[in-house]
């Protein structure tokens, strides 16, 4: 092979061409062959023909060559691309190393933005997007009764308004065509107390009664042992229990031998037939914030005579939609009412997917959260665009040089985009660390009443989302500066004019736009957070009707030997001994506390004429004398119960103002008689101020308080004490006092009454906290942006400021001018942001509590806060501007 002459090297100057490569190669072969043949004595024409004949099918060969050539060419191009990318990345790393301040700020800002997005996505994914942790969970349907009751009363009737009797459940189960299986659990799980004895200290258990097919319908297989048998769920069947995984782990040290053994519950042996898998958490799906220890069979024949107690879940047949099932329910339930005239109500039901039941209420809040972090991400992008642009001044010459040396504009843009992508990926990596921390924190807020809380985690979907976010952020914040920086006038940039005035001006306009949009975004965040915060404060300000501070509660147990007459004296003695404990100011017992569980019975004034379809439900609480003052409920009229209200005396009740308003409007209810509470009419002896019973946001519904001494239907017993000292320190002496009466009183702890309130507001607190945090983050980033832009423009105008000062402008004047330009940007941003906030207000209106989405005070506060932040971030550059020394500015210019 000879050396290639100079000109030949440019044969493929216009790019590779596999087609003509193949042609050239084969032509060379044929020509050489022909030459050979001629040399051997063939005549030239015949030689050429012979060469072609020997070659054979030249076309096919040529075709193969073209295909292979193109393939190689593509690979080479891809390799070149990779090599270029590698070079870009190396270059980026070098330039970031040279500018560590920029790199650190950029990556931190990105990490914050991407981190909160990854964390919120993990929450959203678990609660809204991911299916429930059951097999084929989209076919599970939740039944909510009371469709024909007006919404307000339905809410007021509490659980009783939404659950089913055994008969209603079984009728529907038998007659429907839509469901493959129907199951139920007992919602009044605390009405039966479960006391574990014989393994350590006596212990109160939280147990839920479930129908025999509960686990199989949900698609949950016991991790150890087996499910309940049909026999175990019959009246008189062998007592059996399934343990929850956590209870098994904590109480029995994960001992597999426990399966098949009997434990002592309520003094009787109960066989542990199995342990549920760790993935099954009843509380997280059906009762957020509750930890269940044990499941026992619901004996339907036992509950048949009770009222509405069952929560019903169905599994649809394949191919049946929820709407079809709803149709069928709408037909069946009214029909049942006709054939069962003794039914209390028609059980018209709303059917939703179980998923909707679990997280439907949270959808709006989560969307708002998602929206908020999206805004933060936008602010982050704007900020980084800004940072990139401020580097433009120093880099414009370098970029112009590259272009002058032959790099295409696309090539330069690609290099700048590589830079922003490297930054955003680095930010994403750090952000994921933040996200892991946030998610870990959230998932371990056990007391928060959020469903599926424990299963919130950063999973592969979150990682994918984070990657997507990182790449789009990188492109988003990189593309505008890249296009701007790579364009522009080469000559201008290359000329040594120091500050790069011409492009500087256009950049400045662009940067001002960025800052305005940043302020607008922060403004929307701030208004949203402000509105939610205001609602939250309003909620905390609600008059609860009782005093949760300095009070605590504890589950207690008493043994009246099944003789109701003995109960009064026992309770009285219990309370006397508890009150005698030093530090206890007063004590009382109730079966249910406000903001906790509830149930409803009827209440009707004797002698009144009511329309037939009237809602007469009232929430009932069985209490002892002293309970009402101990809780801090306010007696408006009449008297509290007394120990002398014994079963043989006239039965009495205390009602709340809502009940008085409904039953005896405009009259004094004291001394009036009421039906439907007891077997005989009862006398109203007192009226108390309304107590919030189901949530802080919902106004009180009619309530009836019944003395425990006159009615045996108490659902458990909770002791409430009022004390000035920490209740935890009293627990052991109170327990000692209780055990003198009842040695088998289980170990228990005092729970501050405030925790009921905290529990009730925890979802709201959670969202407000997050949104407020995000708003603060947004404002901080916006402030950073303002500072960056103003400070940059001051640097750019040093010369100009110097001239003006030399011509007599005072420092105050210079400073005012800088602050004025800051304010101009801020005002523009606030105007835009306020307009956007007005629209956003509608989005969050349903999350607000007695706060208008256009609350003037919130908007005003937001405007003032933003102006203050803007002035502070403009102040530092302004001060710097006013300290420009005219002499040095002019000399250096």
């Amino acid at each position: 092979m000879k050396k290639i002459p100079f000109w030949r090297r440019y044969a493929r100057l216009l790019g590779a061409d596999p087609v003509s490569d193949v042609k050239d190669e084969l032509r060379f072969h044929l020509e050489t062959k022909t030459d050979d043949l001629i040399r051997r004595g063939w005549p030239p024409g015949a030689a050429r023909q012979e060469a072609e004949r020997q070659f054979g099918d030249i076309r096919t060969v040529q075709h193969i060559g073209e295909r292979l050539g193109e393939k190689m060419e593509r690979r080479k191009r891809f390799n070149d691309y990779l090599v270029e990318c590698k070079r870009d990345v190396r270059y980026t790393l070098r330039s970031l190393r040279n500018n560590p301040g920029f790199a650190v700020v950029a990556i931190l800002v990105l990490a914050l933005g991407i981190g909160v997005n990854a964390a919120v996505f993990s929450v959203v994914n678990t609660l809204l997007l991911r299916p429930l942790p059951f097999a084929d969970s989209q076919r599970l349907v939740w039944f909510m009764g009371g469709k024909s009751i007006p919404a307000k009363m339905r809410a007021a009737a509490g659980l009783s308004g939404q659950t089913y009797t055994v008969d209603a459940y079984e009728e529907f189960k038998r007659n429907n065509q839509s469901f493959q299986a129907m199951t139920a659990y007992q919602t009044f799980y605390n009405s039966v107390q479960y006391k574990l004895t014989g393994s350590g200290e006596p212990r109160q258990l939280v147990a839920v009664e479930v129908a025999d097919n509960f686990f199989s319908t949900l698609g949950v297989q016991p991790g150890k042992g087996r499910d309940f048998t049909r026999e175990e769920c019959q009246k008189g069947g062998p007592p059996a229990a399934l343990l929850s995984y956590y209870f098994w782990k904590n109480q029995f040290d994960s001992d597999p031998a426990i399966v098949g053994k009997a434990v002592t519950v309520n003094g009787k042996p109960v066989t542990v037939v199995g342990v549920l898998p760790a993935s099954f958490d009843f509380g997280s799906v059906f009762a957020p914030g509750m930890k269940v220890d044990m499941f026992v069979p619901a004996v339907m024949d036992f509950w048949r005579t009770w009222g509405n107690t069952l929560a019903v879940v169905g599994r649809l047949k394949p191919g049946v939609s929820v709407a079809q099932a709803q149709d069928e329910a709408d037909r069946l339930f009214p029909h049942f009412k006709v054939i069962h005239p003794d039914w209390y109500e028609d059980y018209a039901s709303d059917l939703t997917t179980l998923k909707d039941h679990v997280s439907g209420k949270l959808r709006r809040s989560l969307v708002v959260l998602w929206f908020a972090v999206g805004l933060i991400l936008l602010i982050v992008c704007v900020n980084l665009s800004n940072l990139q642009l401020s580097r433009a001044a120093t880099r414009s010459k370098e970029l112009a040089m590259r272009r002058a040396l032959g790099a295409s504009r696309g090539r330069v843009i690609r290099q700048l985009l590589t830079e922003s992508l490297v930054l955003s990926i680095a930010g994403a990596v750090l952000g994921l660390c933040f996200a892991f921390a946030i998610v870990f924190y959230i998932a371990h807020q056990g007391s928060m009443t959020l469903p599926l809380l424990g299963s919130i985690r950063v999973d592969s979907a979150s990682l994918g989302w984070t990657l997507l976010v990182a790449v789009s952020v990188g492109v988003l914040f990189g593309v505008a500066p890249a296009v701007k920086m790579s364009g522009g006038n080469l000559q201008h940039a290359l000329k040594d004019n120091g500050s790069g005035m011409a492009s500087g001006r256009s950049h400045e306009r662009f940067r001002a736009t960025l800052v305005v949009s940043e302020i607008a975004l922060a403004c929307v965040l701030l208004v949203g957070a402000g509105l939610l915060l205001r609602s939250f404060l309003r909620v905390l300000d609600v008059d609860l009707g009782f005093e949760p501070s300095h009070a605590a509660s504890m589950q207690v147990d008493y043994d009246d030997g099944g003789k109701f007459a003995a109960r009064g004296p026992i309770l009285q003695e219990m309370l006397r001994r508890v009150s005698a404990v030093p530090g206890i100011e007063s004590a009382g017992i109730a079966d249910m506390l406000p903001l906790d569980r509830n149930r409803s019975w009827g209440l009707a004034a004797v002698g009144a004429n009511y329309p037939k379809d009237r809602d007469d439900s009232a929430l009932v609480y069985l209490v002892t004398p002293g309970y009402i003052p101990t809780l801090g409920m306010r007696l408006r009229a009449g008297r509290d119960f007394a120990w002398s209200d014994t079963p043989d005396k006239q039965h009495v009740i205390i009602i709340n103002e809502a009940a008085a308003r409904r039953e005896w409007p405009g009259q004094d209810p004291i001394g009036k008689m009421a039906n439907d509470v007891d077997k005989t009419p009862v006398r109203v002896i007192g009226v108390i101020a309304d107590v919030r019973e189901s949530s802080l946001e919902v106004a009180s519904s009619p309530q009836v308080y019944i003395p425990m001494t006159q009615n045996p239907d108490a659902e458990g017993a909770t002791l409430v004490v009022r004390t000035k000292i920490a209740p935890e320190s009293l627990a052991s002496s109170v327990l000692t006092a209780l055990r003198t009466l009842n040695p088998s009183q289980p170990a228990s702890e005092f729970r501050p009454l405030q925790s009921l309130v905290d529990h009730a507001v925890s979802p709201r607190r959670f969202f407000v906290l997050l949104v407020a945090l995000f708003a603060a983050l947004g404002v901080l980033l916006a402030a950073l942006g303002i500072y960056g832009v103003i400070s940059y423009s001051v640097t750019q105008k040093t010369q100009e400021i110097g001239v003006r000062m030399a011509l007599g402008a005072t420092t105050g004047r210079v400073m005012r001018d800088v602050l004025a330009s800051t304010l101009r940007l801020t005002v523009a941003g606030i105007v835009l942001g306020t307009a956007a906030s007005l629209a956003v207000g509608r989005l969050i209106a349903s999350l607000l509590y007695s706060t208008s989405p256009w609350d003037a005070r919130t908007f005003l506060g937001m405007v003032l806060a933003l102006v203050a932040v803007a002035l502070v971030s403009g102040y530092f550059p302004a001060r710097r501007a006013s300290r420009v020394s005219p002499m040095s500015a002019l000399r250096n210019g």
Partner: protein
Amino acid sequence: MEKPRLDLFRGTLDVLILKSLIWGPLHGYSITDFIRRQSDDVLLVEEGTLYPALWRLENKELVEAEWGLSENNRKAKFYRLTSAGRRRLKQEANNWETYVAAVAKVLSAPGLDSPQEPA
């Protein structure tokens, strides 16, 4: 006497091409020439198979190509062994020798001894 002309076994062409390049870059024409001369005109490589084989080797990065000038001053595509190609050649040559030896041994076996039936 007419010399026997043998078609190449599948796969052996690749190893012959690699071998022909071991002393330096060659273009396609001189590769055929080399193989023909080295095999004393026994092995004839058809152009229709040579070029696709060359390109496949190039695609597998066992050889690399470069345009250059031939002895007769024409523009020609020269192929050169890459280090991967060199490794491949060594391996294939070994395989080939083992194969040939084994085949030869079978073919020259001295008559069949009937296997001993177990008593």
